C-alpha cells in the first residue's frame, strides 16, 4: 500500500506533465508499433509543414488522431512549427524518444524508459530544447530514478534542473524543482534540508501569487511534519493547504474536488494517529462525500482507500453497523481493481466490526479471508487464487446460513409444541453457547496465527544456521587450506633460512592450524555437518560422545529403528531439542549418569533424556521460570505438534519424555 501512496503522491508532486500522463488513455498492447506509426505520420506531417495547425494535428487515421489529441500536452506539434528547419529532424527524434520512454513507463518497464529519457536529455542539452528538458525530460527521469529508489541520480537530475531554471529565471520550474528536491530529502529523512526546499517552494509560489502551488507546498510541509510525527503541525499545514486550494482558480472543478478529498483523507488519517476519532471521522466523511458526488473522476484506488479508512474509524468509535456499510463499499471497489492490500485491510476491519457485533461466524469468515489474502500477498500468489478462495468461502458461508436456517425452522416447530417460557429459556441458553463457541473459534484462529509466526521463525533460523555453518566451513576453510599450501611451497623455496626465520615459519603454520581448528569448532557449534550429511542419529551419537568425553558425566545414547532419515527440518529441530536438554542436564542437574534414547515407532518418535541428578521442584520452577530454558524446547515441541512430559522431584533425578508425530 505504501508503494501506491508513494506513487500517487509523486504523480501529484511531479507537476503537470505527470498529471497529464496519469489521465491519458491506456496504451494498447502493441503500443510500441503504434507509437512508431504515430511517429511516422508525425514525421511526415511535421516535415512537410502542412498539417500542424494551432495545436491540432491532422491525421488520416482516426485512432491515431485521437491518440495524438490526448497526448499533446507537451505541445510538441505546436512547438515544432516554431523550430528552424535544421533542428526539425532532431526535434522529431526527441519526440519519438519521448513517446517510446512514456510507452515503456506505462508498461512499468522503468529501466528501458530511463534509457530513452536519458538519450532525450542528451539531445535536448545539445540542441538547447530547454522547454522539453525542464518540463518533461528531467521530471520524468527524476520520477523513474525515484521509483527505483536511486535517490542519488534523482537528486542530480533535479538539482541540475533547478540550477538551469534559476539561470533562466523560470519561476514555475523553480517551484517544481524545489518541490521535487525537498521530497527526495524527505524520503531520505534529511528533514532540515527538506524543510528548506519546501520553504523555497512556498515563498516562490507566494511571490508569483500562484495559490495552487502554494497549496501544494503547504501540503508538502504537512507531509514533512507527518514524517517526523508532529501531528499538530501537520494538521495546521493541511488546513492551510486546503484553504489555499479552495481559493485557487483552477480551471478544473473536478481536480479541486479530488484535491479536497485527498487532503481531507490525509487529515483524517492524522487525527486517527492522534486517536482523535471524532475529527478523523469528520474529515473521512468529507472525502467520502466528495467521491460519492463525483464518482466518475476519482481513481478506484483512492475511492476504496477512503471508504476503508472511514470504516476503520467507525470501528474505533465502536459503531460497527456504519463501519460495515463503508467497509463493504470499499471492499467492492477494491475487488473491482483486485487490489490486495485494500482487500486485506477491508477484511481485517470487517472481522473486527462483526466481532463487535458479536456475529462471530461472519467475523471468523472475514478473518480467515484476511489471513489468506495476507498470506497470498506474502507469498506473491496470483490474484486468481484469492478470488477462487473467496468464492469457496462464500459457498461455505451460504451453506452455514442454510444449515442455520433449517435448524431455526426445526426449533420453531418445537416452540409451538413446548411451553413458551420454557422454550425461551432453552433458546437463550443455546444461543449463548453457540456464541461462546464461535467466539472461541475466532480466538483460536487468532492464537494459531501468532503461534505459526513464531514457529516459522525457528525454522528459518535453523536453515540460516545450516547455511552459515556450511559457508564458514567450506569457503573460509578452503581458503585457509589454500593459504597454507601456498605458504608451504614458499617455505620450500627458501632452503637456507636462519634460525629465527624458521621459528617464524613454525609459528605461522601453528597459527594457521589453530585458525582452521577454531573455524571447524565454530561451524560445528552452529550446525554440525554430520546432521546434514548423515542424519539425526549420527549427529546425536557424535554430540553425545563429545559431551561425554569432555565432562565427568557418563552419557549413553541409543537409537532404535531409524532405518531411513526423516525430513531435514524435523531433524534439525529434534537435534536442537536434545542439545538443549543435555545442556540443561550438564548445567543444572549435576548427575553422574545420563541416558539419551530415541525410538522410532510407526507413527511417532519417542525421545527420552534421563539423568540421576538432583532433580527439581517442577511446580515452583515453572512459576519462577528461572533458567530451565524450557521455553525454547516447548515451542519447538509445539511446532512439531508433539507432547512433552517432565518427571522430576528434588533428589530423584529428572526424566524428560517427548513424543513427536512422524512427519508426513
Amino acid at each position, binding site marked *: 500500500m505504501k508503494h501506491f501512496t508513494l506513487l500517487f503522491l509523486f504523480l501529484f508532486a511531479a507537476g503537470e506533465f505527470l498529471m497529464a500522463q496519469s489521465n491519458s488513455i491506456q496504451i494498447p498492447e502493441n503500443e510500441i508499433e503504434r507509437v512508431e506509426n504515430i511517429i511516422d505520420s508525425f514525421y511526415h506531417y511535421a516535415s512537410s509543414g502542412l498539417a500542424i495547425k494551432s495545436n491540432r494535428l491532422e491525421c488520416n487515421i482516426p485512432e491515431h488522431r485521437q491518440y495524438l489529441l490526448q497526448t499533446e500536452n507537451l505541445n510538441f506539434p505546436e512547438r515544432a512549427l516554431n523550430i528552424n528547419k535544421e533542428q526539425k529532424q532532431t526535434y522529431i527524434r526527441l519526440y519519438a524518444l519521448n513517446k517510446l520512454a512514456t510507452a515503456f513507463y506505462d508498461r512499468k518497464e522503468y529501466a528501458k524508459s530511463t534509457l530513452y529519457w536519458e538519450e532525450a536529455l542528451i539531445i535536448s542539452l545539445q540542441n538547447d530544447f530547454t522547454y522539453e528538458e525542464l518540463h518533461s525530460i528531467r521530471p520524468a527521469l527524476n520520477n523513474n530514478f525515484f521509483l527505483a529508489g536511486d535517490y542519488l541520480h534523482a537528486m542530480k537530475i533535479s538539482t541540475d534542473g533547478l540550477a538551469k531554471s534559476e539561470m533562466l529565471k523560470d519561476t514555475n520550474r523553480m517551484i517544481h524543482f524545489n518541490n521535487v528536491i525537498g521530497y527526495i530529502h524527505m524520503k531520505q529523512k534529511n528533514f532540515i534540508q527538506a524543510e528548506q526546499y519546501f520553504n523555497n517552494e512556498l515563498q516562490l509560489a507566494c511571490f508569483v501569487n500562484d495559490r495552487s502551488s502554494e497549496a501544494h507546498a503547504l501540503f508538502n510541509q504537512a507531509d514533512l511534519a507527518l514524517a517526523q510525527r508532529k501531528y499538530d503541525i501537520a494538521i495546521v499545514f493541511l488546513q492551510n493547504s486546503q484553504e489555499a486550494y479552495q481559493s485557487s482558480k483552477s480551471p478544473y472543478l473536478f481536480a479541486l474536488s479530488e484535491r479536497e478529498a485527498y487532503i481531507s483523507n490525509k487529515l483524517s488519517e492524522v487525527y486517527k494517529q492522534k486517536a482523535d476519532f471524532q475529527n478523523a471521522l469528520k474529515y473521512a466523511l468529507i472525502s467520502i462525500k466528495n467521491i460519492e458526488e463525483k464518482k466518475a473522476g476519482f481513481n478506484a484506488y483512492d475511492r476504496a482507500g477512503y471508504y476503508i479508512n472511514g470504516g476503520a474509524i467507525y470501528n474505533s468509535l465502536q459503531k460497527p453497523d456504519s463501519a460495515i456499510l463503508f467497509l463493504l463499499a470499499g471492499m467492492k471497489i477494491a475487488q473491482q481493481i483486485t487490489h490486495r492490500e485494500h482487500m486485506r485491510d477491508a477484511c481485517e476491519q470487517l472481522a473486527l466490526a462483526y466481532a463487535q457485533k458479536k456475529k462471530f461466524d461472519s467475523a471468523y469468515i472475514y478473518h480467515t479471508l484476511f489471513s489468506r489474502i495476507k498470506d497470498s500477498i506474502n507469498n506473491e500468489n496470483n490474484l486468481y487464487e484469492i478470488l477462487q478462495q473467496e468464492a469457496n468461502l462464500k459457498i461455505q458461508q451460504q451453506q452455514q446460513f442454510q444449515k442455520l436456517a433449517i435448524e431455526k425452522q426445526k426449533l420453531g416447530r418445537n416452540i409451538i409444541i413446548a411451553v413458551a417460557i420454557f422454550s425461551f429459556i432453552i433458546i437463550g441458553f443455546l444461543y449463548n453457547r453457540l456464541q461462546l463457541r464461535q467466539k472461541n473459534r475466532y480466538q483460536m484462529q487468532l492464537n494459531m496465527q501468532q503461534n505459526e509466526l513464531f514457529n516459522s521463525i525457528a525454522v528459518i533460523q535453523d536453515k540460516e544456521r545450516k547455511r552459515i555453518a*556450511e559457508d564458514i*566451513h*567450506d*569457503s573460509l*576453510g*578452503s*581458503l*585457509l*587450506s*589454500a593459504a*597454507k*599450501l*601456498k605458504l*608451504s*611451497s614458499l617455505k*620450500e623455496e627458501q632452503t637456507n633460512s636462519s634460525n629465527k626465520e624458521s621459528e617464524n615459519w613454525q609459528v605461522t*603454520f601453528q597459527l*594457521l*592450524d589453530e585458525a*582452521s*581448528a577454531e*573455524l*571447524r569448532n565454530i561451524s*560445528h557449534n552452529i550446525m*554440525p*555437518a*554430520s546432521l546434514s*550429511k*548423515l542424519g539425526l542419529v*549420527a*549427529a546425536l*551419537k*557424535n554430540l553425545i*560422545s*563429545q559431551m*561425554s*568425553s569432555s565432562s565427568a558425566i557418563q552419557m*549413553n*545414547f*541409543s537409537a*532404535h*529403528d531409524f532405518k531411513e532419515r526423516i525430513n531435514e527440518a524435523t531433524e534439525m529441530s529434534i537435534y536442537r531439542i536434545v542439545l538443549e536438554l543435555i545442556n540443561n542436564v550438564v548445567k543444572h542437574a549435576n548427575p553422574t*549418569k545420563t*541416558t539419551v*534414547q530415541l*525410538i522410532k*515407532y510407526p507413527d511417532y518418535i*519417542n525421545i*527420552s533424556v*534421563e539423568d540421576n541428578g538432583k532433580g527439581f521442584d517442577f511446580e515452583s520452577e515453572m512459576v519462577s521460570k528461572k533458567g530451565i530454558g524450557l521455553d525454547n524446547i516447548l515451542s519447538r515441541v509445539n511446532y512439531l505438534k508433539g507432547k512433552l*512430559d517432565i*518427571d522430576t*522431584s528434588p533428589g*530423584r533425578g529428572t*526424566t524428560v*519424555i517427548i513424543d513427536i508425530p512422524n512427519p508426513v
Partner: protein
Amino acid sequence: MNKIKILIADDHTILRDGIVSLLQTEPSFAVTGTAGNGYEVMELIQKNEYNVCLLDINMPGLDGIETAKLIKEKKPDIKIIMLTTYNDGEIISEMVNIGVAGYLLKNSDKGELIEAISKVMKGRHYFSEEVENIIFQGLTQHKSSDVVMLTERELEVMNLLAKEYTNDKIAAALHISYRTVETHRKNIMQKTKAHNLAGLLKYAYSKGLLK
C-alpha cells in the same frame, strides 16, 4: 617406472590449483585429472585410468560421500583419499566403512600429502593423526554403548514387572510418575519386539537380564 596417476576433486578452484602445483613438483606423480563435483569424477574415471583419487566431501551435486561409494562400486582399484575439512567422528567412520584408503584433513602439509599417496599405493592406509585419534576414540566408546540394549532404568522396570508389580507400584518403587513407567514399558516392548508381557519376560530370561 610409471608415474602415479592422480585425480583431484574439489569445488574450490584455488585450493585445487594449489594442490596440483604442489604435487606436480614430485617426479613420480602426475595429476592427470581435476573435477569440481562428483558427476565430473564419475565421467572422468569411466574414460581414463587413475591410480589415486583425492576427494573433497562437500561438493555441489554429488558429494564426496556418495562419490566414494560409487567409485568403490565402479572402479574398486582406484585408491580413494579423502581430503576434507570435516572431522566429525561419524563422518570419518562412515568413510572408513565405505572403504577409503586414506583420510586427510585439509590443514595437512605437502609432506603429509605425499606420504599418504605413497602409502596407499603400497596397499596400506593413511590417516592424519587427528583423524586416527577420532577413530580410536570412537572404537572405545561404541563398544560400551552398542552392547547395552536396554537402559538401566528400563532394566529396573523390567525386573519389577517380572515380580508382578503393577505400573502404580513400579512408579512408587522407582520414585517416578505413572506416565513415565508407561512410556518405559512401551519403549521396552518396542525395542525387544515383544508383543506382550509374557513374550517380554521370555526374552529377558533367555538373555539373562533378570536378577
